[in-house]
């Protein structure tokens, strides 16, 4: 008994601790880039801009948001989703539709901040777009998850995979749907509105402010993830992940619980999609492909399924490698040893081997939760023995 209350106590203090750490990291990066960097000497500037450029850091925050969203589906509830990019795309297009001059025949402004000369189109306030983006993907989560979550988990993987292929293809072909241009095809929708937060205007190239914005979203997602996990719903998810049959015997409503995890994951994918569209100032269909889904999945797996901090670390490391690391480290190696290896072309191999080797040798990820380690390392048949060992330790 006393053990649990101690655990609960540390959980609360940890909740406060991470917030302080997170805020200080974000604030440091923001202040450094916004105010200090211009005064530093050019070598330091060059170092930061090539190894830790602000746009890539902002992108890391988006990946964290995405990976945490997928973590709710894969890591918490144990449902394999292979088409998460669909939610990213849908969220992005909601931003493209609702805050750009794209629908040029319409003119609708709802607290939006259209650029001068581009007052046509639909312009919503950015916060409303974020909410609507989440709602829109939630509806799609319901459409996809509703029928398929009743089936075996393998089938969910396939249906989501199919979904992740159909949505981007729709966006690519969407320049002519029965004569209407809905998505502008491969060119995508560019020129999104500037952000007007209660009078404070963030321009297209105001990277530090945009970084701050996506960091707040990512921080919110971290908060939700931690809180959800410890709540009633989160515990039900973990129970389903570990043993569906046992969970249903204990009175966990299987479909409803899985469904809520899928919808919440979908919402965060949509919000992330809107945020990414705002970050790059547009939405482009060719970006959304299967590789993105797999990269997000790798982040979740690499860091440690179910553990928020593991996933955050996984997302940070992998997206940094992807955007800067592979090129920069490759250049460094090429320059030092005089070789001419094209490192970015090894991306497939790196991600593939990473997934395989992780599954073979460290299934629970680099920063696993204790119970995930137990589940993933258990071979069939040893479960009873391990469990009895655990109870022995606990009773001691």
């Amino acid at each position: 008994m006393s053990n649990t209350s101690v655990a609960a106590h540390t959980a609360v203090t940890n909740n406060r601790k991470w917030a302080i750490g997170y805020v200080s990291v974000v604030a440091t990066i923001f202040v450094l880039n916004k105010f200090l960097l211009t005064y530093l000497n050019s070598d330091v500037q060059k170092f930061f801009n090539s190894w830790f450029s602000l746009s890539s850091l902002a992108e890391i925050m988006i990946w964290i948001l995405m990976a945490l969203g997928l973590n709710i589906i894969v890591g918490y509830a144990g449902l394999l989703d292979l088409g998460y990019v669909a939610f990213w795309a849908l969220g992005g297009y909601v931003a493209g539709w609702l805050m750009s001059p794209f629908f040029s025949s319409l003119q609708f402004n709802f607290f939006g901040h259209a650029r001068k000369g581009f007052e046509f189109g639909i312009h919503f306030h950015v916060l409303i777009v974020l909410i609507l983006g989440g709602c829109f993907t939630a509806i799609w989560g319901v459409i996809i998850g509703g029928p398929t979550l009743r089936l075996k988990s393998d089938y969910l993987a396939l249906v989501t995979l199919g979904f992740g292929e159909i949505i981007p293809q729709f966006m690519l072909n969407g320049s002519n749907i029965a004569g209407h241009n809905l998505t502008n095809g491969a060119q995508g929708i560019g020129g999104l509105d500037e952000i007007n937060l209660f009078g404070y205007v963030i321009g297209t190239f105001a990277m530090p402010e945009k970084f701050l914005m996506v960091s707040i979203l990512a921080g919110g997602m971290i908060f939700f993830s931690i809180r959800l996990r410890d709540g009633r719903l989160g515990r039900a998810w973990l129970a389903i992940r570990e043993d569906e049959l046992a969970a249903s015997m204990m009175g966990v409503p299987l479909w409803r619980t899985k469904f809520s995890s899928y919808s919440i994951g979908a919402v965060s994918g949509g919000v992330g999609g809107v945020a990414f569209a705002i970050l790059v100032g547009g939405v482009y269909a060719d970006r959304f492909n299967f590789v993105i889904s797999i990269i997000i999945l790798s982040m979740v797996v690499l860091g440690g399924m179910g553990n928020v901090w593991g996933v955050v670390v996984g997302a940070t490391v992998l997206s940094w490698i992807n955007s800067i690391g592979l090129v920069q480290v490759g250049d460094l190696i090429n320059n030092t040893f005089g070789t001419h290896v094209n490192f970015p072309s090894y991306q497939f191999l790196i991600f593939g081997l990473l997934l395989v080797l992780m599954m073979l040798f460290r299934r629970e990820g680099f920063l696993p939760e204790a119970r995930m380690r137990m589940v993933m390392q258990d071979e069939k048949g040893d479960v009873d023995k391990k469990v009895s060992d655990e109870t022995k330790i606990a009773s001691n």
Partner: protein
Amino acid sequence: MTSVASGIARKKKVPLSAILLRLSSFLIMGVAVYWLGINFAHSPQEFAQVTINGLNNGLLYALIALGYTLVYGIIELINFAHGDLFMLTSVFSFAVLTELLGAQSPSGKNYALLLVVLLFTMAFGATLNVTIERLAYRRLRDAPKLAPLITAVGMSFVLQWIGLKWIGSVPVNVNTVLPSGKYHIGGVEIAYKTFAVFLITVPVLIILAFVVDKTRRGRAMRATAQDKDASRLMGIDVNKTISFTFAIAGAAAGAAGIMWAQTIGTVAYNLGFQLGLIAFTSAVLGGVGNLYGAVMGGLIIGLIQAYNDGLSIGPGQRWSQSMVFTILILLMVYRPGGLLGETAQEKV
């Protein structure tokens, strides 16, 4: 399930959702039949032509789908790497037959070479698949289901990378050894290539079906699929049997790979992903784990795709992929067991 729980005396009530589901399925079927009907009335010749093209592709899909269905049947793993295995075999056949042996035009010698390389490609596919199973999947056989699935996705990436390094990122044209002429019946053209596909894939399918249905090894496979422990007690070497299954799956993919390179005429490193998904849809359509179902599913998907791409009144080629996946999703909703399969109860 619920009717049992709620007692026997109560009159069985069909829920509204089930009725709606049934009605909507009829509606979808009706639309599909109407679509095919107006196309047939529009131009019967075109319809027949497209049907033949569809069967051609369908046979290749069937060969790949066999690999999925065999592997899923025995270790319940969706082998995501299988499509990329197929891609590598097509690249292998291109490298050996077209580049190394220089067989680039129709001639008697080249036909013989095609048959020899067919065997080599099948052997290559089988070896590769067995190696992958040995290195990656075997260790994970008792792990939670998510682990081998993610491993398969990772393997698929590794294989794609090998393909990328082998032939580069641009699709490569293959000069086929098959004759380019066409056979005319009543305004419908059948390419000689199509005959070649039938001549090679149909025997391969029959041999594979014979191996699984009639031989001792095949019986061991089916036993292992049902219950590994029990078959181990009966003296079956489970590891060997699973390796054998992977070998057969790889060989089928090899046959499909060389025929794809020869008839479609291009190989590309990202071929495997699309084809793998199409083939998996075929396997699911027929009922995963059912050999004949996979063949039937492959043919049906081939036809549907051909109708979608080729018919003059239809969505057209740019929706090809969406069409296949829409079928997959609809199938999952209406008939998750597949056309020939039965909805399996989960083992407890």
